Structure formats: structure tokens, C-alpha cells
């Protein structure tokens, strides 16, 4: 991502790069013990200020998401009205749906640091924390599943040759050519009508189907990448040697080839998480994502009409999404650079 690089450039990438290379060189002279490429990359990463700061931010966000129930308990705020103690809309709002406490009409209150959601009377901080939880759950789950699917199919296609490769490549191309938004638009109502009987079932169905849709349209990039890598690795001596001495195919795939693919996989993971976060928010904003779980995208959608009177309502989820996506992207860039210093300009 160019945005990541531009930040690096401010820090003086050339200098940093030189220093790293020297650092890499120094221990090798004093200590002959070998280090795996992953460890080398991690040590490079640890020296990347941008990566460290962004990783810190991400850690904080993840902690906030994980601790959401405890934080809400502690602050006595509720993301919905399921709890009998949760305030009703009429207790929190004035006529017209404007909050009776805090912004926009009243001064800041610590009871509701980010204000109250108009129309529903829910606490914005609680919504934000649970929305973050949803975003990260969806993004991480979608990433894990699409990596597993993508890597497996990529390995198979690259190593198998012949018909299997042709079929798998066709499938990859087929899914790549399928328009993502259109697919999501078409699938959302089908899922609702199929699982629409009960609210909790629907909530789970929505979550799983959203992850499913993201995976369905998200695994192909990695599969292609892996296939390409395998095609070139396949002809290398160590693979041929393994083949000659009769190592079983699955072992060649997972013991010989896969370790050599860690770098592209890690890079793909680190860059697909922010893409999934943005996709979840976008789909929920369009009303075809999640409706029963709190979601940052959904809050953005509700908040747009209130922007004039109550900007904080919109700013909070937008800024959170922005920080999260930028941090994830920058970390992803840094990881890629760390694994492959040659890409550094």
C-alpha cells in the first residue's frame, strides 16, 4: 500500500533499511546459529516504528473488543434493551428522538462518554465496543477460513498439474469474475427467508453467512498467489529430491512446500483483515450485512441523517473504522516489507 510507504518515507526508509541490513549482518558474524526467515522478519518488524505503534493500537482495539462486556458492566451501559435494567428509549430521549443527556443538546457526561444513540436510546460507547467485536470476529474468521481454503486449493492446483489444475484454475477464475456486491445482494434475502423463523437463529445465520460470503469471494487471490509460487517451487531440487526418495505427496505439500510459502501467506493475511473489516462495515451499511448484531457499518448508516445535529454519533464509528483499517494496513505493509526487504523503496 502506498500509504504505508509514504509514512515510512517520512521516517527515512533508506537509513532504516541500511541499519537493518547492518544489524542482520552483525549477529551473523558473531553468532553462527541460523535464524529462520520468520525470525529475521520479526526482528526487522520490531525495529519498524510504524509497525510497532500500529500493532499497539490494534492490540488496544482487540482488548477493547474482547473486554466489551466487562467494560459495559463497569460503566453501566448497555448495547441493547435485552437487559431488564437497560433504559428504554423514552427514558433517554426527548421528543423527536434527540438524547436527553450529553451531546448534542447537553454538556458532556461521563455516564455516556460517546453520547446516546438517537431513536433507540442505546449507549454509543457500548454500541461501538460491541460493533468492534463483531467487526473483528467477522474479519478474523473470514480471513482464517479463506486462507485455509485458498492455501489448500492453491497448493493442489499448483502441484497437481493437468486436469486438476485446469479445473481448479477455472473455478478460481470463475469466482474472480463473479461480482461480489451482486452476490451479496442476492444471497442476503435468501438467507433471511431460509432462517427467518427466529431472531437468534437469524442472528447466527447472518453472522455465518456474512463470513461465508466474504470467504466465498475472498479466497481466490491467495489461491492464485500460492499456485504461482508452487509452480516455481515444484521444479526446485529439494522438491524433486523428495519426490525421488518417495516422500508421500501430502508430506511434500505440507512439509516441503508450505514452509516456503509462509511469507506470502502472512502478507496476504495481514492485508485481507482490513479488507474484510471494511467489507463488513460496507455491507452492513447497505443493509445486506448484519441486522441483528451491533455493527459499526450499521451505526454509520443510522448516523448519516443525524450528522448535522449530532456529529459525534457519526464520527465515533467512522473514526474507529478508519483507525482500525489504517493500522491493519500499515501493519500489513510492514510485515510484507519485513519478509521481503527488496520491496522497500
Amino acid at each position: 500500500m502506498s500509504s504505508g510507504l509514504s509514512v515510512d518515507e517520512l521516517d527515512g526508509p533508506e537509513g532504516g533499511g541500511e541499519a537493518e541490513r547492518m544489524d542482520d549482518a552483525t549477529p551473523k558474524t558473531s553468532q553462527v546459529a541460523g535464524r529462520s526467515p520468520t525470525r529475521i522478519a520479526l526482528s526487522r518488524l520490531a525495529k519498524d516504528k510504524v509497525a510497532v505503534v500500529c500493532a499497539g493500537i490494534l492490540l488496544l482495539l482487540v482488548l477493547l473488543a474482547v473486554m466489551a462486556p466487562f467494560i459495559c458492566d463497569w460503566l453501566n451501559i448497555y448495547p441493547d434493551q435485552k437487559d431488564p435494567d437497560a433504559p428504554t428509549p423514552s427514558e433517554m430521549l426527548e421528543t423527536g428522538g434527540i438524547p436527553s443527556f450529553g451531546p448534542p443538546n447537553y454538556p458532556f457526561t461521563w455516564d455516556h462518554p460517546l453520547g446516546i444513540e438517537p431513536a433507540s436510546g442505546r449507549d454509543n460507547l457500548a454500541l461501538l465496543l460491541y460493533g468492534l467485536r463483531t467487526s473483528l470476529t467477522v474479519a478474523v474468521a473470514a480471513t482464517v477460513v479463506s486462507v485455509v481454503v485458498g492455501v489448500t486449493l492453491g497448493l493442489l492446483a499448483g502441484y497437481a498439474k493437468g486436469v486438476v489444475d485446469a479445473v481448479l484454475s477455472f473455478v478460481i477464475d470463475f469466482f474472480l469474475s463473479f461480482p461480489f456486491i451482486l452476490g451479496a445482494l442476492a444471497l442476503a434475502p435468501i438467507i433471511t427467508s431460509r432462517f427467518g423463523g427466529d431472531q437468534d437463529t437469524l442472528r447466527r445465520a447472518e453472522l455465518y453467512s456474512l463470513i461465508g460470503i466474504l470467504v466465498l469471494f475472498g479466497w481466490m487471490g491467495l489461491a492464485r498467489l500460492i499456485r504461482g509460487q508452487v509452480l516455481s517451487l515444484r521444479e526446485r531440487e529439494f522438491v524433486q529430491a523428495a519426490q525421488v526418495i518417495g516422500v508421500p505427496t501430502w508430506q511434500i505439500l505440507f512439509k516441503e512446500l508450505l514452509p516456503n510459502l509462509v511469507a506470502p501467506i502472512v502478507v496476504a493475511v495481514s492485508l485481507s483483515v482490513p479488507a474484510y473489516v471494511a467489507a463488513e462495515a460496507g455491507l452492513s451499511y447497505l443493509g445486506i450485512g448484519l441486522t441483528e448484531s451491533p455493527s459499526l457499518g450499521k451505526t454509520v448508516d443510522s448516523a448519516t441523517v443525524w450528522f448535522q445535529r449530532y456529529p459525534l454519533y457519526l464520527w465515533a464509528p467512522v473514526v474507529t473504522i478508519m483507525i482500525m483499517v489504517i493500522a491493519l494496513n500499515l501493519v500489513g505493509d510492514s510485515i510484507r516489507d519485513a519478509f521481503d526487504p527488496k520491496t522497500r523503496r
Partner: protein
Amino acid sequence: MRLKQPIIAIAAVSAFTLAACGGDGTGSGTGSGNDDQPDTSEGGNTGQTQDPDREGPVTIEGAAEGGTVTVISTSGLNTMDPTEAYYQNTTSILTGLVTRAWTQYAYDEENNTMVLVPDLATDLGRPNDDFTEWTFTLRDGITYEDGTPVEPEDFAFSAARSFDREAFPEGPAFSNDYFVGGDTYKGPYTGNGLKGFDAVEINGMDVTYKMATPFPDMLYWASFAAMGPIQEGADSDPEKYRLKPLATGPYKFGKYVPEKSLELVRNPEWDPATDPARTAYPDKYEFDLQVEEAQLNQILLEDSADDQATLTYDDVLAVNFDQFKADGRAAVGSFPLTSFWAPDYTKITDIKIRQALAYAYPYEDADLAGGYIEGVTSLPGAQLLPPGTAGRKDFNPLPDHEPGSTDTDAAMALLEEADAVGYEVKFLYTKDSDSGVKVKDAIVASLTKAGFSPKPVPTTIADFSSLRADPDTDINVRSGGWIADWPSGGSWFPPLLKSTDVAAGVLGANYSKFNEPEIDAQMKEIQTLPVEEQADAWGELDDTIMTDYFPLFVTRYGGVAQAYGSAIEGHFIDNTIGMPTWKNIWVNS
């Protein structure tokens, strides 16, 4: 009558208004349209005042000619064919500015009410003794926009046209319900021209309509665009006429892009001296449709120099209403809409549980979550008949229940009495509408507090009305709404509460599946009463049904909160339909 856009529950209901009337072969009731007493209660009069002697021309003191009025709205215009115009916006724009009919409404600023006055007729029509014949006399010297004179035969053709349910599936079906031949004549396009059509008789300038069922409310039906003059011929072919109906009123169609924009320009053939209600001060109207809601609010809020002559007939966002009110640019009024919750009478058989629901319903929370403005677009009440309906009786079926308030303790007590704590309440909600989900959350919270076990059933906006209309859907409460076409109890009770053959899959608009032969008999009896007694009889029936059976409870009466730019004058609310008083608008330069 239908709302502007078929997006929410209510809109879908009003489509049923029509379906129910169309399917009601016995003819839904009559009721008094002749009550001259103005109703000044909150919520306003819904138009039963009449003035058969009013004459044109109308002038507004201080009003200046000229200017262009821009009208913005989030919804498009459905068909603009006068015979099929049955949405709030299409019918009001046509009758207010473009097409004339026998009668029309004029705004009475003093009493903030609408008065029924003559339009193309010289009076409000002359019925025979049993209301099976109505005669209207056409004024002299009326012409279409192209200069051809309006003939009495054109009314016969428009009446025939209004029979054609196949060519105009969305149009009002009152002709089919009441007129002679309603069950046999199919209309000029579906049937064989005017062959077999004998509901209209012409005698010089007199046009006589003949009814199969007594129709005391004909003078209201005569105000619909569908009953205005339409020339027989190629020009009035439905496909063509919906794009350019011939104007008899002060404005005619200019450039019209369906669903997107409409330009209305002056019709020089319109003679103000013949019109007892319309004025035509602006030079032009420009309708800009399908504007984003947030953008629409922004344009009106900012009121910049270019947009000062702009108005909207959409409700403004609740959040902006205070601002518009403070600026003095809000037009507020009521219209005859009752929204209600109808517990399934065949499933929730214990009246105590139905009453407990009325106590437990979160009126205020649902208003807030749904974006309604309390006291403006949502008014509390206990009677099915909204304020302003002739004969409406003041009563409360739950004496301890303040209408519009929630009392979960009382609901709990009733549930305990009925030994039904934890009673499962299944209702539909639209999961793809933000406000639908929020209202559902509020209802679930409140019902849970009251001791019910709410089970909301998710559906989509698109499927909502068909699922609700299906008697077999696994729900036991239906939410609905009803808009009256004219102020009479006969347009409320028979369609909503007359027994329907649920076993045959016919629910109609009887959302509670209410089935009491005794009430059916009473409705029938009221329809045969002398007209002047009917209004009060409907009011009494309202009391009887709600007190003894409680098949549904009112969640809100409707109202509108529109806004206009600082250069617009005369934007009041036509409370028969909840739209601007087009006939009074002028631009203040």
C-alpha cells in the same frame, strides 16, 4: 387511500384498503357525509364541512403572481392517470393543480379545516331519496388545455374508465362497489368499449349516476380525479394518458420524466371565475423526485437564496423538526390514519391478554424508535375512528389506561389474572429497515417487562404485506394502519372488522381475524339506517366493539410534519389527505 411510497407497513395496508373494498361485493357502508358541524377537536376535522354555494374566482389578499415553486420528495410519482391516481401525492397533485372534477376541497384558514365545495358542478350534486341516483350539473364554458370544450359525455367516459380494474389495477374501486353494473361491466379497455355500461345518464348539462347500492358519500367520490372529465379517444389511451393527462385546472403538464421530475406550467384555458377554490399565483411548479432524505432535509434547512421557493410533502426528519418550527417553516396537520395492533382473535381468545397487550405496548418508545414526532406525526387515542370523523364517540375501553401510555404493571396484573404469564407474542418486523428493527427492540423490551414472551418474526420490507395478509403465517399479532377516503364510519368498520372467511385463506384487511356474527349484523343494520343516524351509530359501534370484544388497539393516529422555504406562502395541510394545500400556495418575492 395510499401513502406516497410503498415502503412501510402502513403503505402496504392502505393498498389493502382498496383490495378490501374491491372484494366487498355487498358494498361497504355509507354513513353521513352531511354533518355540517365543524369538529374542532385535536387532530382536526377531516373534511365533512360543506359549502354548496361557493363561487369563484378566489383571491388571496396580498398574494403576488409569479415565481417558480420547487417541490422535492423522496418518493417518485406512481401513475399520473387520473383514473388510477390513488396515492397521496398523485391524487393530491392532480386534483389540486391539474385536473378538475365535480367537487373539490377548499382550505378554510380560520378553522384549519377543509370544506367540500363545487368544482365543475354547479352544486355538490343532488341525490334522490335513497341515494341510488346522483345528479351533477356541468358549468358552462369549461375547456381542456387544448381549447376543446368539456362535454357531459366526458364524465360518462371517465366513469366507465373507473370500472376498469385490469387497466387500472391500482385505482380506487368505488365505482365497481356502488355503481349499476359494477359486477358485470369490465371497463372500456378490458370490456367492449362502452357496451354494457349504463351507470350514467346524460340530460343536457346534467349527468346522473345510478347506483346499485345506496351511496350517500357520492359527493366525496365525485371529488376524486377519476371522476373528472376524460375525453374518449386515442389520446386517453391508458399508456398515453398516464404521461400526459389533459388539464382542466390552472396548470398543465410540461416536461414529465416518470418517477424523476415533473414540470407544471400555466394552463391559459383555465378560467378562475369558474373555480370556487383554486388560485394560480406561481408561474410554474417543478417537482424534483427521488431526492435522498438527508439531502432533502438539508436543502430545506439551509434555505439558501436559490431554494427559498422550495417545499416538500414528505415528513421532515424528527431531528430537524424543532429547527423548522423555530424558523416558522413547518406545516403541521393531521390526516385520517389510524395505526393499530391487531391480536389474532382466533389465537389470543382471552380478552384479558388482548387488553394486557394494549397496556404493555411501548407507545412512546415505538414513536421514538420509529422516528415519529409525538403530538405531531403521532397522536394517542383509543377509538378506531380518528378524531374528526363524523359521529366519533369519546370513550375509553380501558378506563384505567391513559391512551398512549405504557403500564407494564397493569399488563402483568391482567396476565396473572388470565393465568398467562409468559404468553408468547409473535409479530412480524422488517429486518432490512433500521427503524423497523429499532421499533421491534422497543416492543420486545416492553412486552418482556410486562410478562409476555415476545417472539419477533423477521421478514423483509418486500415480503411484509404478503406475509401479514396470509392467515396461515405463524404469528399471533398483526400491525396495520388504515386511511379513510372520506370522513365516514362506513369506510372503517366493514373492511377492518367484518367477518372474513379465514378458512378459505381470505384475510383482507381484517387483521385480527375478528369473527362475531352479532357485530356483522349490527354493521349491516347501520348501513340501512337513515343517513343522518348513521354517523352516531358508527360511533356507538366503535364503543361496543372496543369495550366488549377489544379485537385491536390503536397505537397512533397519523399526522404530517412538512416544511417549506421562506419564500413559500400558503402551505397548509389538507387534512383530508395529509398533503399541502396546493390551491393556496404563492411565492413571496
